[in-house]
């Protein structure tokens, strides 16, 4: 399990990358969201023995990371979260799928191929999401979500969650540190303190929510939030269309 500091560091790192001054960051969020969803859709729709299109699909990842100046290491690091389930699901394929598949003239056990393609798909999809989030802030994604008519209540809640993650994580860190300083040598929070420790914090958070509400309502909040409008440039349209065309061609013709 990640320590709180590590998680906070990760959070700050991604927020810093999101604020870089790079043209990919300033692309319209809707286009980037669309490419990501379509890319993931096309990758996962590939058959388990489809090696060639799977290799070709890497061009998007390569482009996004090299031109977008993103770190492959950071992206691959995100794999750790899904790796256990991915491995569990794929590891038995070589033993169970005994079909022989011809690859480059050699007969290879189908299970081995399907396990490899599964891992590669896992890698691609995670890197594609990373490429999206590293270049797009949550506010921008919320803006895109509003454009595709996601109910405003969900979008506002997402924005508030995002805003208060820092505040609440900081509180979690302080509570945990204060606890550990007085309970040395314990790995986590002991049973008898669960309720009081988290419960107090929960009630405090509810009080904070009340203040947030008052602050919103005093400034005319009536259930909606209007963000700053974003302009659309030619590149905002050309970029997603170009990628979607390339990816679709790869998917259909190979």
């Amino acid at each position, binding site marked *: 399990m990640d320590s709180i500091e590590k998680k906070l560091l990760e959070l700050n790192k991604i927020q810093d990358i999101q604020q870089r001054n790079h043209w990919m960051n300033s692309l319209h969020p809707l286009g980037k969201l669309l490419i990501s969803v379509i890319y993931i859709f096309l*990758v996962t729709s590939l058959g388990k023995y*489809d090696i060639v299109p799977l290799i070709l699909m890497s061009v998007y990842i390569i482009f996004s990371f090299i031109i977008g100046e993103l770190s492959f290491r950071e992206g691959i690091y*995100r794999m750790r979260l899904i790796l256990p389930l991915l491995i569990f699901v794929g590891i038995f394929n070589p033993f169970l799928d005994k079909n022989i598949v011809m690859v480059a003239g050699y007969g290879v056990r189908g299970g081995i191929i399907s396990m490899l393609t*599964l891992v590669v798909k896992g890698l691609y999809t995670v890197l594609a999401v990373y490429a999206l989030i590293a270049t797009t802030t949550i506010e921008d994604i919320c803006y895109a979500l509003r454009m595709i008519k996601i109910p405003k209540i969900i979008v506002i809640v997402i924005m508030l969650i995002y805003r208060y993650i820092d505040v609440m*994580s900081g509180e979690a860190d302080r509570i945990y540190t204060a606890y550990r300083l007085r309970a040395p040598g314990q790995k986590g929070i002991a049973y008898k303190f669960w309720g009081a420790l988290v419960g107090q914090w929960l009630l405090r*958070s509810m009080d904070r929510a009340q203040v947030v509400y008052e602050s919103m309502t005093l400034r005319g909040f009536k259930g909606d939030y209007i963000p700053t409008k974003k302009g659309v440039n030619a590149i905002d349209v050309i970029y997603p269309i170009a990628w979607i065309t390339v990816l679709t061609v790869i998917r259909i013709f190979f």
Partner: protein
Amino acid sequence: MHMADALIAPAVAGTMYVLSTGAAGVSVKKVREESDESKIPVMGVMGAFVFATQMLNFTIPGTGSSGHLCGGMMLSAMLGPFAGFLTMIGVLLVQCLLFADGGLMALGCNIWNMAFYGCFVGALLIWRPIMKKGASRAKIIAASIIGCVLTLQLGAFSVTLETLVSGITELPFSTFLATMQPIHLAIGFVEGLITSAVLIFVYESRPEMLWGVGEETKKEGKLSFKTTIIVIAIAAAICGGFVSLYASAFPDGLEWSMEQVAGTSELEAEGTVYETAESIQETTSLLPDYAFKDSESAVGTSFSGIVGAAIVAGLSAVFCYAFRFFRRKTETKTA
């Protein structure tokens, strides 16, 4: 227990998106009906709270390991199932968009597996009936543990089903299930304990903050229809699952019972989940030819094909690096 993009076929992802969107639509409508704007900041702050509590480790008595809080159950007990569900959607979305935790396409699955069961099953079927006549320590512990165990079981079951139906794994249904369910039984129990400890604290200090306590007479008729539907849907899912499990593990047994009941064993064609899934997949998949290639038709990926693809990928990398290299140079020149 986040589902990954790579583990699901587009058709399954789409189906789960539709289901989750439906549940979200109902929830948005319900929350709007209450027309209480003060709930929005509470949802936001509570979402961040759930996010942050998941960073805390709780020592499990008698073992060396640690557990976490069950967000869906706790949120529903505080905010009710509808606002709780929308908040969980927010939490899952932020996890996905900030930490790449769970995928974009798998989001529909994750919302269903983690938020839907936690909020609707946990709150409407477990929490509310138990709290009908008022709360007590014992009732909160019971509701939390039953709720968390059941919702995690359903969640794990769904993960298994979604992966299998997607045709990703070669694992037999029964093996997969036999691994997933017991692990989540233990996790659910611990989450239930932690959740109950927190809710008991709330109950003892500010009981009015708990949702659905002593609501016996209030608007019972309004929700009972929906509750019934949900019960039936879940029951059907569980039944379907267990029948298939039974069928794949003991196919003879099912045939035998079919013969006893109907005098025929004709149903054997649909004996396994995988086969059923395959037919569903073929009728629903957007790209049926590609999504479920069986081994015979996929034979023969040629050497030249692989080399060609690898060269394309390699060249694109070289071009990108070159582009970046020269662009930097020109930038420094002009600067």
